[in-house]
């Protein structure tokens, strides 16, 4: 009964999707396109990695899309306003941490359900971001775009950042006291308190990490786009949750992980998008296909989980 959901159905699906696209187009299966997919997925994967930690504690963070937007707008405005470029990243991170802190405090101190807390900060973050940007797109200077195309030892910077964030969080989850205790909290909060786990402290940290990841992920995505539209990050929270769930992380807590889990989930979503672009599919069809695939994966997982009726 207590079975760790394997992300293997997602891996199989990823392979099938890749086979399908490579049979439909020559342009799909090559090193350059694969590198492209990795660059495109970096933002989502980072946000989803932070989300994974929250989901493992049986929480949820709906505010990540707004954090991506707000962090981008704040740092973008500051750079546009003449501040040096190097200041952009720490400012963005600060915004992420601040919203994450609010989430954590509200969940822990005021004991409000995470869904409600982060729904509220979703509203507030987006509202504040729109206020600062005056609901116009923020066009970023060329130097900002350079971050997105910069290469470190031949590897594009977005990929480097993604690998760094994911590897660190993976190690944290699997190798540290903090990580292991998150699984205990997700399984049963009351028991965790009894077992002497500092549940409140840990939960605040988890929402901080999720906010931080959202800010980093948003920053990485913006550096590729060159501008922040007023709808940037809209529904990103849903994509991040979908990536984590596709990778075998349970919405009910206590189960999941980043490698291969969430990374494969995010990769699947991005590969489909990329493949559809390459075979010149009707862009309006993308969400339909992505949604159908997510539905199938969730269906397969529920089949595995439930044998009996209740």
């Amino acid at each position: 009964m207590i079975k760790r959901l394997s992300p293997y159905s997602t891996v199989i699906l990823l392979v099938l999707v890749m086979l399908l696209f490579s049979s439909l187009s020559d342009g799909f299966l090559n090193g350059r396109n694969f590198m492209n997919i990795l660059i495109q997925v970096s933002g989502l994967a980072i946000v989803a990695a932070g989300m994974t930690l929250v989901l493992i504690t049986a929480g949820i963070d709906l505010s990540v899309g707004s954090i991506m937007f707000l962090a981008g707008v704040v740092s973008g405005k500051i750079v546009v306003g003449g501040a040096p470029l190097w200041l952009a990243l720490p400012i963005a991170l600060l915004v992420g941490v601040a919203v994450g802190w609010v989430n954590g405090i509200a969940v822990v101190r005021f004991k409000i359900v995470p869904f409600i807390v982060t729904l509220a900060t979703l509203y507030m973050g987006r509202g504040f971001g729109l206020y600062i940007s005056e609901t116009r797109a923020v066009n970023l200077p060329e130097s900002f775009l350079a971050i997105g195309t910069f290469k470190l030892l031949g590897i594009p910077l977005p990929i480097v950042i993604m690998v760094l964030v994911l590897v660190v969080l993976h190690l944290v989850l699997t190798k540290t006291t903090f990580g292991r205790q998150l699984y205990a909290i997700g399984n049963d909060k009351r028991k965790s308190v009894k077992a002497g786990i500092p549940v409140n402290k840990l939960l605040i940290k988890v929402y901080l990490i999720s906010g931080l990841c959202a800010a980093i992920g948003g920053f990485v995505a913006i550096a590729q786009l060159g501008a922040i539209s007023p709808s940037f990050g809209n529904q990103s929270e849903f994509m991040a949750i979908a990536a984590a769930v596709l990778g075998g992380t349970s919405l009910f807590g206590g189960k999941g992980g980043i490698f291969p889990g969430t990374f494969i989930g995010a990769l699947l979503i991005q590969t489909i998008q990329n493949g559809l672009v390459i075979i010149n599919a009707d862009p309006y069809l993308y969400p339909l296909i992505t949604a159908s695939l997510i539905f199938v994966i969730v269906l397969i997982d529920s089949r595995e989980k439930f044998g009996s009726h209740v």
Partner: protein
Amino acid sequence: MLKLHHIGKSFGPVEVLKDITLEVKTGETLGLVGENGAGKSTMMNILGGIFAPTTGKIEFNGQAFEPVEVSESQQSGIAFIHQELNLFPNLSIKENLFISAFPKKQGFFNTIIDQKSLSSQASALLAEVGLSVSPSTLIGKLTNGQQQLVEIAKALNGRPKLIIFDEPTTALSQQETDRLLQLINSLKEKHISMIFISHNLDEVKSIADHIAVIRDGALIRMQEAEIYSKKEIIRDMVGRDLDQFFPIRSTHPTESVSLEIQDLNADGKNDLSFSIREKEVLGLYGLVGAGRSEMARGLYGMEKLYGGQVRWKGAQMHKLTPQNWIRHGVVYLTEDRREEGILAFKSIRKNVQLAALPRFIQRFGGWLDYRSIKREVSSKVKATRVKYQDLEIQPVSELSGGNQQKVLLSRWLMTNPSLLILDEPTKGIDIGAREEIYQLINQLVEQGSCVLLISSEIEELLGMCDRIMVMNQGALTAEFNRSEFDQSAILKHALKAAHD
């Protein structure tokens, strides 16, 4: 080792503990018994640092002891083993053992868990409690008994001077219980003091040096276990003699068969066949894990069935779901009251009406007839003698275990059942309420129902049943009529194959 001096505790005007003075010596085991609500848990919560006593002093290990936090009580050397285990099924044994303080590797700010040392320390603890499984096994894969041992290993890790066991054997099979009691005996030799709380007086008598009985918050008597007879203990617990503990029924089973089961397969291996007659109480005995509940739950439509034919009052039953069974007058009282019995924060009325609602749909308009519902609910809770304050407002979770069980019985009585499948109906229920439940069963049977009584307590079955079937490793191994009842023969059949 531990001394309580005139301990009293009040919640507002309610006095739950009155002037309790007792002592546990080093290496000694105290058996603590009392009905639910007698004050045992309050006493334990005071020792655990959850409440402070209103009056009196505690002395532990030669020093005044005033814990204000759970961790403080733990650090001074008191460990608790609760009936409800504090383990995480999604983590491994070793992770569970050290969840609050993992051994760390040097470097990396000392954040990385030292897996090697974790495994070796865990193995050592497991050896101490005699559990021979890999420390990397997930807790969820262990049996209840094995989990209990892990819990004790966890407690031993803190090198406790006093271990308090609160109903530790409720979820264990007979074998597992025996093993646990053995382990407790070996702990005595290590000069660890223990307090052992249990409803099972045989266990308490076999393990304790002294037995203390608490009733209504006061210590009634504390005496050496050897000279404190079971009868005296019960009298002290209840405050009166319980001569006719199992009331006598005025009726006998008729010849007409109510339920007939053929080749029912609930575990994929064994085919079970049996029948129940009208006005019969059929007992089903077996160790925990013998497949009794699985059979009943499969029959009732809560777990998977692999095959079988079921006839109810002569007609073939096709759809085995609770909904369909209830329509035919067959109901199942669950063993797991909290998880699948009560609607915890709903009123008593909402809990009682639940299963019988379709009966109250008015022919005109399809509305529910709430006036009749309320009338019938209050008559049923009177019949089952639920003690309550308000049917409409009081949430059922505020009632004691025994009263919750009576609420669930009232729920089933509302459906006018002809067969009641009762799964451990008196588990964790105090003696007074128990007697009332037995009387209720008899009333129902006298009125023409039949009962399938599943129990781990052989005395209960001997006292209540017309016939007893024994289940062992998923198969029905023996059957005894009332005239042939023989405790040792029944036990032998329940245990036999398990030892092979």
